[in-house]
């Protein structure tokens, strides 16, 4: 009882605090709303949010309205409508689904509010309605991972793939980029099977355990992010299987550490801080009337055991 | 008796109905003439309810014919029966709380327009008309959950009047009615009779049967024992037909010298349920509580057992004032309650006989952390023998036993607690005659062994038979307390109708 009560009190206090904050901030110049995909589901998104808030606070010309869709497309559309209702100057959206948000984005454009897509792009049909995309190139990331895999296996071998949550754009794009590039660059590497790990380390660990039983000839594993990649690594270690090349994406600190130990081949370095700051800057530039490239990719380099010294360890 | 048409309204011929392992009805005949009240008697379990369910289409007979106004018919379901003019008014209320009186009266056949909309004006007009006939002072729009039990019973009866009924079956209709309401009901029945409807009237109350019925038929053990013209028979003969021997509903004449006061109650009240109740029970004494359903008897028992918090008054056990916080507390102080409803309050139907019987003391039957199988079986065996419980094994789920055996399990469960004060609420409801006698004997024996016993019953013969003293209640108040010598049926009936001795005189 007390826990709920405390939480309730805390919640109400937070409500009152943000309320006061919102009122006090009226005088500022740009009001920028953001609706994120699913904060809290993994550290990347959480760190992104913190970086975004920090960046917005550091800039005294910006007042940020920060919302989270909790992974639900419908809720995200509602939030876009709420942001339009509040007459924000610009909307940044991290789509829960690249296609489903297009009409809502269109609605925002019709209301005269520029929309910036962040992290994961929306479907091409929606390109007419957005001002810019800022984020990593997930297809390119998939392709980079394919190249890493090629390199690790010297162009020959059997691998398995653990993909992200089915139906989510990032997962689909990385998988697509990986498969297309792999077929092109390395026809000698065969993907024996793909199963989703739902961005979840434990789920990924279980999937890998099943793979290990089923196949005794796994040479490499591609995971949609390092969180899942480390899950797969755990499974292989527990089963005593060695000589498997693990390649992930979105380098997490656990992946970075595994690389340090020499257990993990490589990943794609992607900083949520860069991601968030780029998105905010793009929005400000557009509001300032500056010329902004339509596809505003930030760098997501390959990171391997060899070059990891060039990168700081991810904070998440 | 006036002569009506030659063909009877209803004739049942050789009805046989079997359930797995039981022959519930064994070739039953019954003839109900148009314009007569035909009483149907029999002990519980004699097959009355089954017969009526066959008649109302709820059961299909295995053999036999149902002849309605000279035509053989088949009742496929209750609706079918009703459409053919046979209406059953249930003993247990079968109303829907959330709906209005009108909707309940016309349940399953709401008048409607062609688009399926309820035709409210017709519905309410028709219902109000019926309610007026029944002298009910509530209207068709009233929600059933706002009505008292007695009024709900009237709604149940109102259902019978929605169709052009040829035969109406009343199953214990007066069980929860006040005397004033009974008068109205009897007027309704007489009115139906005058309109040429055949009425089957099931009741345990001999006075009602003898004042109301034209003829009566008796069932025993699922078979037909004969029909008598009411005016030409008497209670004794009917009783012999019902139970196969004379039963003397004598007053208790044992004169055990009562001991010290075990339980005393002073000015006990609980909200509107009962007020200012005072009485005492001595060791070796059986005190009977008699009154109508809703008079507050059960609620007193529940208060003594710690299930209700009294709003005023004191309870003294062996002269010491106690606050009973809950059933566990009551049990530890030596109070046991055999509750009113065995299925809802007395038993866990899915559990075995043994587990049910040892439930209140399961915590004490342990060796180490485990329940001792042997101790449990010993208790079960002891009370199975003592109460003559018939069950294939202690493993049998209680839900599979007959009502009488179920009741014995509940009684056994509480006897096994060796209580100081034993409260039994409706101890013989739904129990066959033989077992009834045994339980009465058992209650007397317990008293003679020094237990203080409270018996709550709605059956006057039972109360008179087992009690040393009788306390009559009406509407939450104790009207009068009778010693064994001074009680008469008349005075008791007056008391439970709220007539105080001073005014009665």
């Amino acid at each position, binding site marked *: 009882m007390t826990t*709920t009560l405390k*939480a*309730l009190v*805390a*919640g109400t206090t*937070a*409500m009152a605090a943000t309320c006061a*904050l*919102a009122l006090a901030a009226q005088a500022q110049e740009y009001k920028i709303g953001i609706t994120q995909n699913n904060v*809290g589901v993994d550290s990347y998104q959480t760190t992104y949010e913190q970086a975004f808030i920090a960046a917005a606070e550091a800039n005294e010309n910006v007042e940020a309205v*920060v*919302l*989270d869709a909790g992974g*639900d*497309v*419908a*809720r995200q559309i*509602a939030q876009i*409508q*709420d942001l339009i*209702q*509040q007459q924000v100057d610009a909307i940044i959206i991290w789509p829960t*689904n*690249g*296609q*489903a*948000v*297009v*009409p*809502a984005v*269109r*609605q925002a454009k019709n209301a005269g509010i520029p929309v910036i897509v962040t992290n994961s792009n929306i*479907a091409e*049909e929606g390109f007419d309605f957005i001002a810019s995309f800022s984020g990593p190139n997930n297809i390119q990331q998939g392709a980079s991972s394919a190249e890493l895999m090629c390199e690790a296996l010297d162009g020959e071998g059997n691998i398995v793939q653990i993909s992200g949550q*089915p*139906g989510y754009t990032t997962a*689909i794009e990385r998988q697509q980029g990986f498969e297309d590039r792999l077929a092109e660059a390395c026809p000698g590497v065969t993907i024996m099977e793909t199963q989703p790990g739902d961005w979840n380390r434990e789920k990924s660990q279980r999937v890998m355990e099943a793979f290990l039983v089923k196949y005794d000839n796994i040479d490499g594993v591609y995971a949609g992010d390092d969180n899942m990649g480390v899950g797969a690594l755990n499974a292989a270690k527990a089963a005593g299987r060695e000589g498997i090349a693990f390649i992930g994406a979105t380098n997490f600190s656990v992946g970075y550490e595994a690389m340090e130990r020499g257990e993990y081949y490589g990943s794609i370095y992607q900083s949520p801080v860069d991601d968030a700051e780029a998105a905010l800057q793009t929005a400000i530039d557009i509001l300032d009337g500056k010329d902004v490239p339509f596809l505003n990719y930030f760098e997501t380099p390959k990171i391997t055991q060899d070059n990891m010294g060039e990168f700081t360890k991810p904070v998440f | 008796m006036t002569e009506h048409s030659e063909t009877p309204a209803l004739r049942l011929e050789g009805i046989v109905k079997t359930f797995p392992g039981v022959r519930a009805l064994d070739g039953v005949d019954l003839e109900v003439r148009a314009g007569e009240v035909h009483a149907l008697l029999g002990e519980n379990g004699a097959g009355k309810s089954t017969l009526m369910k066959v008649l109302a289409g709820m059961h299909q007979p295995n053999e036999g014919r149902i002849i309605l106004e000279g035509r053989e018919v088949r009742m496929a379901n*209750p*609706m*079918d029966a009703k459409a053919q003019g046979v209406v059953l008014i*249930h003993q247990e209320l*079968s*109303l*829907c709380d*959330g709906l209005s009186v009108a*909707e309940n009266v016309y*349940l*399953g*056949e709401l008048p*409607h327009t062609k*688009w*399926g*909309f*309820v035709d*409210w004006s017709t519905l309410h007009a028709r219902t109000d008309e019926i309610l007026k006939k029944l002298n009910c002072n509530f209207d068709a729009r009233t929600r059933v959950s706002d009505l008292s039990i007695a009024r709900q019973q009237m709604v149940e009866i109102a259902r019978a009047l929605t169709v052009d009924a040829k035969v109406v079956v009343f199953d214990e209709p007066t069980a929860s009615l006040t005397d004033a309401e009974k008068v109205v009901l009897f007027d309704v029945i007489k009115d139906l009779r005058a309109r040429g409807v055949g009425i089957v009237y099931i009741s345990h109350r001999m006075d009602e049967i003898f004042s109301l019925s034209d003829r009566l038929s008796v069932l025993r053990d699922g078979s037909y024992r004969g029909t008598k013209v009411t005016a030409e028979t008497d209670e004794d003969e009917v009783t012999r037909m019902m139970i196969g021997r004379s039963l003397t509903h004598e007053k208790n004449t044992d004169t055990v010298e009562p001991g010290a006061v075990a339980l005393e109650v002073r000015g006990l009240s609980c*909200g*509107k*349920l009962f007020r200012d109740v005072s009485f005492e029970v001595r060791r070796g004494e059986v005190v009977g509580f008699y009154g109508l359903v809703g008079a507050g008897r059960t609620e007193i028992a529940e208060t003594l057992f*710690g299930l*209700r918090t009294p709003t005023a008054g004191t309870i003294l056990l062996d002269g010491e004032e106690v606050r009973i916080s809950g059933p566990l507390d009551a049990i530890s102080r030596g109070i046991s309650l055999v509750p009113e409803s065995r299925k809802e309050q007395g038993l866990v139907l899915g559990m075995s006989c043994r587990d049910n019987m040892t439930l209140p003391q399961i915590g004490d039957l342990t060796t180490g952390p485990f329940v001792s199988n042997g101790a449990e079986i010993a208790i079960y065996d002891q009370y199975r023998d003592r109460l003559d419980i018939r069950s294939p094994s202690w493993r049998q789920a209680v839900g599979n036993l007959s009502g009488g055996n179920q009741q014995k399990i509940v009684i056994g469960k509480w006897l096994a607690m060796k209580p100081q004060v034993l409260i039994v609420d409706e101890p013989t409801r739904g129990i066959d005659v033989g077992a009834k006698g045994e339980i009465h004997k058992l209650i007397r024996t317990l008293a003679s062994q020094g237990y203080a016993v409270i018996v709550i019953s709605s059956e006057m013969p039972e109360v008179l038979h087992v009690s040393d003293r009788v306390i009559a209640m009406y509407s939450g108040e104790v009207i009068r307390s009778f010693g064994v010598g001074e009680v008469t049926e008349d005075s008791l009936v007056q008391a439970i109708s709220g007539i105080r001795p001073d005014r009665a005189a």
Partner: protein
Amino acid sequence: MATLKQNAALRWLTENPIWGFVVLIFVFFSLSNEFFFDMNNFQNILVQTSTIGLIALGMTLVMINGNIDLSVGAVVALAASLMVDIQSWDAFSGWGNWQMLPALIAALGVGTALGALNGIIVWKTGVDAFIVTLGAMLGVRGLVFVYTKEQSFFAMNFTFSDLGMSTVGPVPSLAVLFLIATVLVHILLSRTVHGRNTYAVGGNREAAVNAGIRVGPHMVVNFMIVGFMAALAGVTLSSQMGAATPNLGRDYELWVITAVVLGGTKLTGGAGSIIGTFGGVLAIGILRNGMNLMQVPAFYVLVILGSILIAVLILDKQLTRKGVEALKT
């Protein structure tokens, strides 16, 4: 006479405590946020709650029946996928905007059919509706993934999403649709024979059987209605997005049940009303919208919504309590 009216009003409020709560949060958000009290925002709330709301209307019938349907979220996804996919089939490419019609028929038809399937299983097997629809919740989601092969669908034809964004006069079409559906289901429940029987079946099944109501088919009809409503919600939701994703509708069953229970429908059946359900839906909609506008952190929103659900349950218990006389069981 005046007191009688007052009593009636009081009684209405004790029977629909949720409306008191709706007024309370309405006033709270109106006073504490400048953007809340605005016609456009009210329309937003109606559109945003229409998805949950439509399903809740059907769920009310099923729950008054004493059943429950946990599979509605999956049905939303299946109907949305069918709606978006079928309208882009080559077979209908010559139909112009009419290509939406076969898609609509298929989506609503499949939703209704799955409702019927649930209902028939409940009726014929006698397995508890909770278990039957828990199975269906998994199974229908499986069907969605089999059908979509894990892909999202996108409607090439913008007319479809324009429809979702369109207005009737000044009011969004989806809000109008939701309001009309609410009125229709209210009429169905309060004025038709089927509606009144719904209470009878849930309140006292034996009495309903004895009165000749065919309980089995009756329940199947209500399952079909909730299936239809869930499919309709899937269609309207996909029209807002011009797309469908296989994960659509996750957890919706929980929010729908929450809304219906907040509205005063008893899980044991026999009691409840559309007016209450509408209040429950609005309560959730207003809370979400208001907290969005006030930027309550998402983490706290979860705690607040959960706590409110439990708090309303406690309040409801207090209102129906019998006081000191009650039996302590």
